[in-house]
């Protein structure tokens, strides 16, 4: 278990939300544009890295009976910090993400990493794990958001990229569009890994 592999596993092998299929609520709800995806992803990454570090540092002192409660208090504190800072300095993004910022508390990815990884490993490995998973999550949200933005409003990162008479496929910006886009991406990722393993086997 090297530092490198702990970091890179979050980028492909266990990339959330596609491999873990956790944390779907923010994934489906906020990815109406690429930039929203990045904002949500970075907020989650910040919480994930710091909660991983603190859970890992405190893992020897937290009695196992109250570990979940302790993890949640730690996670919730960082979520409130993100919420306040975002409200103070990135108000436009805060207004878009709105209720989904406080909901990071119940994002299964974060509690999942605290429970499955940070509570069993040292702070440096846990930081690498948190960063990897967080960046993987950010990339996934960005890709998903960009696809929906491209089809749904004909723009990429807010800039128009399609011809002016393009009729936006508004369905993609609605919740069902999120499921469709997520499903197609999941299928693609599974196809790629199957091809990869087939090539490795032959």
């Amino acid at each position, binding site marked *: 278990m090297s530092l490198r592999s702990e970091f890179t596993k979050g980028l492909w092998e266990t990339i959330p939300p596609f491999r873990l299929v956790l944390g779907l609520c923010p994934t489906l709800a906020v990815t109406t544009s690429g930039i929203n995806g990045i904002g949500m992803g970075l907020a989650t990454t910040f919480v994930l890295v710091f909660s991983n570090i603190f859970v890992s540092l*405190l893992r020897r*002192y*937290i*009695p196992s*009976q*109250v570990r979940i*409660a*302790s993890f949640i*208090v*730690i996670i*919730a*504190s960082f979520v*409130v*910090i993100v919420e*306040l*800072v975002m*409200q*103070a*300095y990135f*108000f*436009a993004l805060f*207004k878009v993400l709105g209720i989904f910022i406080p909901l990071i508390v119940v994002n299964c990815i974060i509690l999942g990493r605290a429970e499955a990884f940070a509570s069993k490993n040292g702070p440096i490995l846990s930081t690498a794990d948190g960063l990897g998973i967080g960046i993987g999550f950010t990339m996934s949200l960005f890709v998903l958001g960009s696809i929906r933005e491209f089809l749904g409003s004909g723009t990429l990162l807010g800039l128009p990229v399609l011809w002016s008479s393009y009729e936006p496929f508004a369905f993609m910006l609605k919740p069902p569009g999120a499921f469709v886009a997520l499903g197609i991406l999941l299928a693609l990722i599974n196809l790629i890994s199957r091809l990869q393993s087939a090539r490795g086997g032959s």
Partner: protein
Amino acid sequence: MRDIIKMVVVLTLIGAVSGLILSVVYNATKEPIEYQTIKFVKEPAVKKVLTGYDNDPVADRKTIAVGTDEKGNPREITVFPAKKAGDTFAVAVEGKGKGFHGLIGVMVGVREDGTILDVGITSHSETPGVGSKVEESSFTDQFKSLKAKAPVKVDAISGATYSSKGVTAAVEQAIGYVNSFRKEIF
């Protein structure tokens, strides 16, 4: 027994430290948050109701104490002055009036000579499609160039009488502030 004590102590400590950190962050971000809220929520309305100024009304905003509320707490209003060459010629003040569902917030621009420049709805929770019509310019434009003196009379939207009255009441409240605190404002 030892376990239980340890559990309680650890959880209490984690909670207390979190609380401490959060209170520090809250205090540090309080002012920027207030500024951002005013900038994003009030500024569009301020910009709508004031014209021809060369200053930043949001940066030049003043707070004026306007007595106390029912519970005896001091009440303050924020006024946004519009200046030309350093001279305040108009001001935007927000007033609140009771609509059909809760309070309607209305930003009112008042010229120094006592006429209304324009009004803009800042917040409301009126019925969509019925009471929410008070936001439309066909209704708010009626207030333009009226005398800034109660009672303000405009044609109510049919089917949305309460909402229309709420807006009028909010405008009258804002005008009331301007008239009673002329000295502080201009």
